[in-house]
């Protein structure tokens, strides 16, 4: 890996770390500002296939399948007094790793893959939930900033072991 590629990787790592911090700090408006208006935010349902047949996730059913408008609705909802699923908010910690820049056009677009591990703690419960998976992200460069235009989160469980996804992946 040459220096140029290292800097590039570092740039998107930093973006993902900053994003993780905004979500963990429940700064949803600032997080939402990172999204591009053409956003497609998707989390397919993972399936348990017998062999190496791929993809091993559904191409028809999703746990998230939002555009910018639906994502905005979720963020707005969390700000009502009735979003019980996150009252009080979960304590989350997002660990981002294995960042790889797959495609890059300077000042235009990028495709980045990364791994994500979310630790979630609710209320006084001493049990925690772990959500693990791979993010397949696409970015568009707009007004001097990288904006997320597509995220496909491939979760590592076919039965999700958390009471809900009132949190973002």
């Amino acid at each position, binding site marked *: 890996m040459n220096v140029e590629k290292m800097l590039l990787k570092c740039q998107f790592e930093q973006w993902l770390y900053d994003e993780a911090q905004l979500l963990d700090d429940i700064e949803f408006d600032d997080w939402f500002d990172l999204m591009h208006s053409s956003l497609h935010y998707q*989390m397919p*349902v993972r*399936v*348990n*296939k*017998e062999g190496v*047949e791929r993809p091993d996730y*559904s*191409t*028809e*059913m*999703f*746990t*998230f*399948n*939002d555009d910018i*408008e*639906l994502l905005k*609705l*979720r963020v*707005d*909802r969390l700000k*009502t*007094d*009735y*979003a*019980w*699923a996150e009252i009080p908010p979960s304590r989350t910690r997002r660990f981002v790793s294995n960042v790889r820049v797959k495609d890059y056009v300077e000042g235009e677009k990028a495709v980045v893959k990364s791994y994500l591990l979310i630790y979630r703690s609710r209320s006084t419960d001493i049990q925690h939930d772990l959500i693990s998976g791979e993010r397949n992200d696409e970015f568009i460069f707009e007004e001097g900033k990288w904006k997320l235009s597509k995220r496909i989160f491939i979760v590592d469980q*076919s*039965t*999700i*072991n*958390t*009471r*809900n*996804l*009132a949190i973002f992946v």
Partner: protein
Amino acid sequence: MLKTEKSLEEMSKQQVVDYLNETVKPEEGVIPAYLLGDPKVYDIEHEKVFLKTWVFIGHDSEVPNKGDFMTRELAGYSLIITRDAEGEIRAFYNMCTHRGMKLCRADKGNKSLFTCPYHGFNFKNTGELVGVPLQKDIYGGNLDRSEMGLHKVKLESYKGLLFGTWNENAEPLEEFLGDIKWYLDILVGRAEMEVIGVPQRFVVNSNWKVGSDNFVGDSYHTMVTHGSIAKLGMVPNATYSKRGFQIHTDNGHGLNLGTPNPDFAFPEELKDEFKTNLSEEQYGVLSNLKNMIGNVFPNLSFLISHTKIKDQFISNTSIRMWRPIGHNKMEVIAWMLVEKNASQDWKDRSRDSFILTFSPSGIFEQDDTEVFTDITEAAQGPMPFLKNLTYNYTMGLHREPVDFIGPGVAYDDKFTEASQRNFYKYWLELMTK
């Protein structure tokens, strides 16, 4: 005052059953909290409810082609559901008859032969044992393969809904469903329906009965638990959920029917198909339907929901099973169904409205699971038993049923707990039989 009698843990099974008879009083609206927290009650439930009644296992559109299969659970035991070369659907216990290894470990697929990973015994999707490695050599011609077919599980279907039971003496499925069939026709018999993709699955630390109770008759919670939805303008106002009818039928089934609806909630272009499949009365209900939330005893809940998303009304139809994993844990399995002949645009919008509202990320569902978890936690351990903690199910006890166009006992708005009392009445009947 603390009790001096035995704890549930010290009681014999018969004593627990007697104690249930004494303390569970659905007709008076008294349901003790220990029903949601006691492992012994859960064990008796497994034997007397889940091994006795019909339990939902899937929809026939999930195995549409010859050779398709899927694995499901029936009362905690894995099943293989197959469609053979003639199109017949069967269910088998997912266990090799030689040494008991789990035969199939995928969710679904297409194949006509299942090979055991242990010794390579081969079973056809009709259940027959067709191959045993080195059979002649090692069994000397004495192995009767015809005696070693897979254990067949009793399976019956209604309007595409597949149910199984371990009880060889179970009444026919249609008898068990009884009058709820009239409403299931509207749910899944109104048109040719198909499951979109695969079901959503997630685990909630909740007793399964909390889910059934919520769907069988609790529209009252919508005002508060789902208050955010009204705030976002997706439903008319916080009290919209009261309007309509609550209906219950024999064997613990029940539903809430939200009506009227100024808009037609289903694909307009399929009106002829709906009219062909439904009676005039059923079509009348369908045309005015705002929502339909119910439960087929014990743990199959269903829903038609009509909401406004991006300034456009759209409905979605789903069924969900509260699959018990333990006295305080369940797996929620949610299938989304749509009219097969609907336009692709309708199917996509309907699916996305389901995902947005009822799925692990659903903005209705996520608030429910928060409540389910905390109710279950508060019911755990010996204290709720010791202190006789009970829930109040008396809402609407003073009311008389009304005439309704469909069968069952109906009340003329949804805010009553008659359906929940009916659910627990049948539950108690089975538990103490």
